[in-house]
């Protein structure tokens, strides 16, 4: 029973998408949700079976040729190893919970069938991405998830800013895809194949390109370019914050748990290439580390609950990318998994809050939701602790492993470790700022609205604050448990764990070890020290958040006023969007319109042609006058013609 064909896993959601897309309009919301959730549930079940049947060797299935011309051939083939198996479990597992949640969340929104058709289509493409057995098929999933992201960000397409955000996401991703496309082509001409099963072992036999920039370095940098697009890393991260205009379950599934981690996946998948290209590795680590810190700083001052989470996602993926950059692929994927749990939970919790507040997203206008939304409160707290990497929550184990690797790996160093450590502190600060402003204090809008300071109870009744229905809270609770306990599968030896995670995932990365380097020497003492540092920093961030937003709220305003300039810069996201618009978008549009179209096409080319036409016309007009109808002038022309003709003949014969 473990040998059901792999293609069933992605095809089930595709069938669900097709059914709901074509006929969903005719059925009730309940039926639509049942099909969508059922498709993902079955797919999850099959993923579990495939996981259980996983042997030592990767399982490869081929379903025939997709593109075959001359000497080139690319097949539809799937490749199941521990890495892709984990990814399918995350995509279908977390995807299933989010689908269930969305079945409740989306009821008031309209376009129910359309929403679930897109969601299932997304799951199909994401599964294709992670199961693909060659880079070209991976690219199918890669582009496909981008499409679904476009469709779902722009789900409320009547709102112009949502449509803008969708388009921006697609375009920025396309810039990255340009890199992937060139990388694919270079891969083919370097390895004569696009299959993982052929490329990866051969890459592992290559010497390390430590002196010269060779094809591997180029390929790896181009893949990194694609990853910065899809995974929202510097400099192509700008689309993700805007993507929050999509429905909240979409943010949870696509823009937190799964799609945005595709960049990490492709780098990890290409691990054997990367470890032979140290320059590219350094670039990866740097991009990851810088993004982690940079995005975290922006997250500190944002006031939209989903935007804070978006910057947090960018920052956390930065961690994963940094881990890849120090060849800690196992740690990167571990963090990918735990992050999928707690970040999906954070988004769904935020959705629950937004739901209760009738669409309000500004955390300055929230507050005091602790009592009225206990399930959301407790699960959200678990996720915040996991994000802050507090022991024993899941984020602690994965983040700690990344920090340790950043410190100890031959490609790492103290600098990267410090970047990661600083980010950890800031992360802990911004997430508890969010948490405290949302769940503690008084409901702000209610307090403002009431003529005299109203009590908590009054505010609650005024706003009909309520906990979300069970269909939404159960996924929260399950994700909460995973956020709490999910890290123990990677519990390191230090805690007496056997680290089943590393043992399980290791075969996927056995080719992706740095040649000539053994495993970094594990000094338990150093590791304990670093761990203590990161815990300390996490608590420092937590403490600072409590100080500023719970114990001394006035202090936050004072600080804000004191560092007004810096605050404004960070609040406006370092003006990067404006910078891009000024530098790229406007010159392109204006140049194309004024110079290329109106200048070149209309004036230079058509102008020349029209002038030639007019001149031809004028010549004809002049010649026309020869036929004046005047007999004497005809005689004159005849004489002239005869003279010329005779003259010509005489000249010719002489």
């Amino acid at each position, binding site marked *: 029973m473990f040998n059901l064909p792999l293609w069933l896993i992605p095809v089930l959601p595709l069938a669900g998408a097709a059914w709901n897309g074509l006929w969903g309009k005719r059925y009730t919301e309940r039926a639509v949700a049942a099909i969508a959730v059922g498709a993902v549930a079955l797919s999850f079940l099959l993923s579990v079976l495939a996981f259980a049947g996983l042997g030592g060797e990767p399982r490869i299935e081929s379903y025939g040729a997709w593109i*075959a011309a001359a*000497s080139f051939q690319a097949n539809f083939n799937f490749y199941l190893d521990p890495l892709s198996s984990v990814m399918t479990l995350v995509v279908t597992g977390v995807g299933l919970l989010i689908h269930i949640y969305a079945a409740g969340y989306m009821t008031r929104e309209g376009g129910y069938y359309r929403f679930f058709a897109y969601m299932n289509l997304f799951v199909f493409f994401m599964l294709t991405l992670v199961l693909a057995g060659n880079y070209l098929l991976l690219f*199918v999933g890669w582009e496909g998830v981008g499409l679904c992201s476009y469709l779902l960000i722009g789900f409320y397409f009547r709102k112009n800013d949502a449509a803008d955000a*969708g388009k921006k996401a697609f375009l920025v991703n396309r810039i990255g895809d340009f890199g992937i496309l060139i990388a694919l082509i270079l891969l*083919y001409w370097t390895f004569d194949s696009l299959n993982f099963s052929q490329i990866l072992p051969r890459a592992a036999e290559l010497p390390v390109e430590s002196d010269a920039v060779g094809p*591997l370095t180029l390929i790896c940098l181009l893949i990194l370019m694609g990853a910065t697009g899809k995974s929202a890393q510097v400099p192509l991260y700008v689309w993700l914050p805007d993507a929050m205009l999509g429905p909240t379950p979409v943010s949870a599934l696509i823009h937190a748990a799964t799609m945005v981690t595709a960049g990490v996946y492709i780098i990890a998948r290409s691990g054997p290439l990367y470890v032979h290209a140290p320059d590219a590795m350094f670039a990866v680590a740097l991009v990851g580390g810088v993004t982690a810190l940079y995005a975290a700083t922006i997250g500190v001052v944002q006031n939209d609950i989903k935007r804070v989470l978006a910057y947090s996602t960018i920052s956390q993926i930065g961690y994963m990318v940094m881990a890849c950059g120090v060849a800690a692929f196992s740690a990167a994927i571990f963090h990918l998994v735990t992050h999928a749990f707690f970040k999906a939970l954070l988004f769904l919790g935020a959705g629950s809050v937004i739901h209760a507040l009738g669409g309000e997203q500004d955390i300055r206008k929230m507050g005091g939701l602790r009592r009225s939304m206990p399930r959301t409160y407790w699960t959200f707290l678990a996720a915040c602790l996991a994000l802050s990497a507090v022991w024993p929550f899941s984020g602690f184990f994965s983040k700690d492993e990344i920090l340790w690797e950043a410190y100890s790996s031959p490609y790492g160093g103290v600098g990267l470790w410090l970047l990661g450590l600083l980010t950890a502190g800031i992360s802990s600060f911004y997430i508890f700022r969010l948490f405290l402003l949302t769940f503690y204090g008084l409901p702000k809008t209610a307090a403002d609205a009431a003529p005299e300071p109203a009590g908590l109870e009054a505010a609650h009744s005024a706003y009909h604050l309520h906990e979300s229905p069970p269909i939404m809270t159960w996924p929260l609770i399950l994700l909460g448990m995973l956020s709490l306990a999910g890290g123990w599968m990677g519990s390191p030896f230090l805690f007496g764990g056997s680290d089943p995670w590393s043992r399980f995932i290791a075969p996927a990365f056995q080719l992706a070890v740095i040649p000539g380097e053994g495993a970094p020497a594990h000094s338990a003492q150093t590791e304990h020290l670093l761990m203590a540092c990161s815990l300390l920093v996490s608590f420092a961030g937590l403490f600072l958040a409590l100080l500023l937003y719970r114990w001394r709220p006035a202090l936050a305003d004072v600080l804000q006023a004191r560092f007004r300039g810096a605050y404004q810069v960070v609040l406006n996201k370092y003006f990067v969007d404006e910078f891009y618009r000024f530098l790229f978008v406007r010159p392109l549009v204006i140049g194309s319109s004024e110079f290329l179209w109106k200048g070149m096409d209309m004036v230079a080319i058509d102008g020349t042609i029209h002038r030639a036409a007019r001149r031809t016309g004028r010549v004809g007009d002049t010649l026309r006058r020869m036929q004046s109808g005047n007999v004497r002038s005809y005689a004159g022309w005849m004489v002239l013609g005869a003279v010329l003709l005779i003259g010509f003949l005489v000249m010719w014969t002489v």
Partner: protein
Amino acid sequence: MSALLNCVLFLPAAGTAVILFLPRRRPAAIRALAVTVSLATLALSVALPFGFVPGTAAMQFVTDRSWMDSPAIRYHVGVDGISLFLVLLTAFLTVLSVLISWRSVEEHVKEFFFFLLLLETGTIGVFVAVDLFLFYVFWEVTLVPMYFLIGIWGHERRVYAAVKFFLFTVVGSLLMLVAIIWLYNLFGTFDSERILQALASGAHTLTFLQQFWLFLAFFAAFAIKVPLFPLHTWLPDAHVEAPTAGSVMLAGVLLKMGAYGLLRFCLPLFPDAAHALATPIIVLALVGIIYGSLVAMVQPDLKKLIAYSSVAHLGLVVLGIFSFNQLAVEGAVYQMLNHGVSTGALFLLVGMIYERLHSRQISDMGGLATPAPVLATLFLITTLSSIGLPLLNNFVGEFLILLGVQQERTLYTALAATGVVLSAAYMLWMYQRVFLGEASERNQTFPDLDRRERGILLAAVALMLLMGVRSPFFLRRMDASTAALLDRAGLRETRVERVVPSEVAPASGRFIEPPGRRPYIGTTEVVP
């Protein structure tokens, strides 16, 4: 078997003859006849690829008879892997053009369908003619019906556009005629197969200078038709003013005649000249890709936007052809088909919007997805096909072209691939302005597609999907012909020795095969 191709070629012409005898006051009968004839032609041409033997480069379904003794003009027709699917594409798009004109053409119905069917015969003739004079005849036959389609059933500035179209094209084709006659004087035959044989056997040779001028004369005709930058300015005007069916045929198949001519005649007949001029032509093609995309981005007129996107797409095709690499050439042929289907469908969609709004200005649209979800969905799929989303048709062609070109020059690939980003930019921006946002008061009652329109578009969308996932069916039939074409042009050998050693080998070179081992061209072995 040869009867099949002759039927495909002359059935539409026979249809025009019948239409002449149908009474003008019965438009329904004329329409019914047009649709029957075009469907029958399509049905016959669908049989072509199934009767076609892959693996051989020889012309198939051949008829080779003398037409005139002096000058020796032959009725020599046939298809190979390059022209096979272009015939099919023509038949397919003619059916769609007939159906889309069902209601939109109310006046001069008889003449309209007469010209449309005549255009079909002319276009198919261009793709199947082997004799150069025959080719020229069909080439000019396409010009006349298109001139009238634009000039009579077009929009406001139709006369200007029709004349511009006619003059541009005729300048090029007259130069080609001169070259054809010159070739006849040199070889004593118009038959391109016989000329190629004479060249191959060494019975005749062309000096480089002869090749150079002959190449340029042919190239002028084809480059205008493609159109290659900077000869493209007739295209936006012709498209904007043409009726929907005219735009579909123009973009779908007439432009392909240019690219096809380059591949069929310019490369094998004048290989040295092609080689010498490849770099400037590639530069023009690259300029076309980027320039066409950028200018498309800022068009306020929907039809013009798509017209400029054609300049970009065809630039990629020309790039593929002049890279002299088999993968790129196959990609280019595939891309001709893809562009025909996708851009054809885009013009159909724009036509449907125009029928409802009586405007082509993007600013008059907006929010159309709300009143017309089916139209919006089909438009989106076509848009995605056009910007090269994998699993849809264009991706396959674009990828193969880029893959093949890369073997020649990395820079070319990188520049051409910017088209990937730019096409997404102009198409999605356009889509947003047309379909997303809030619909204006006037557009609230915008009617969605009816059953006929849905059927037309579903056929196109089905083909996009089919060509996106089942490409080997098409590509495998092109292998032998494209290989032979590059072989005959003597272009393959030059490539191999030129490229292998330095460009791909990494510093180590450990797993890179020695030169010559890699099956560059022609082998069809299956790589697992």
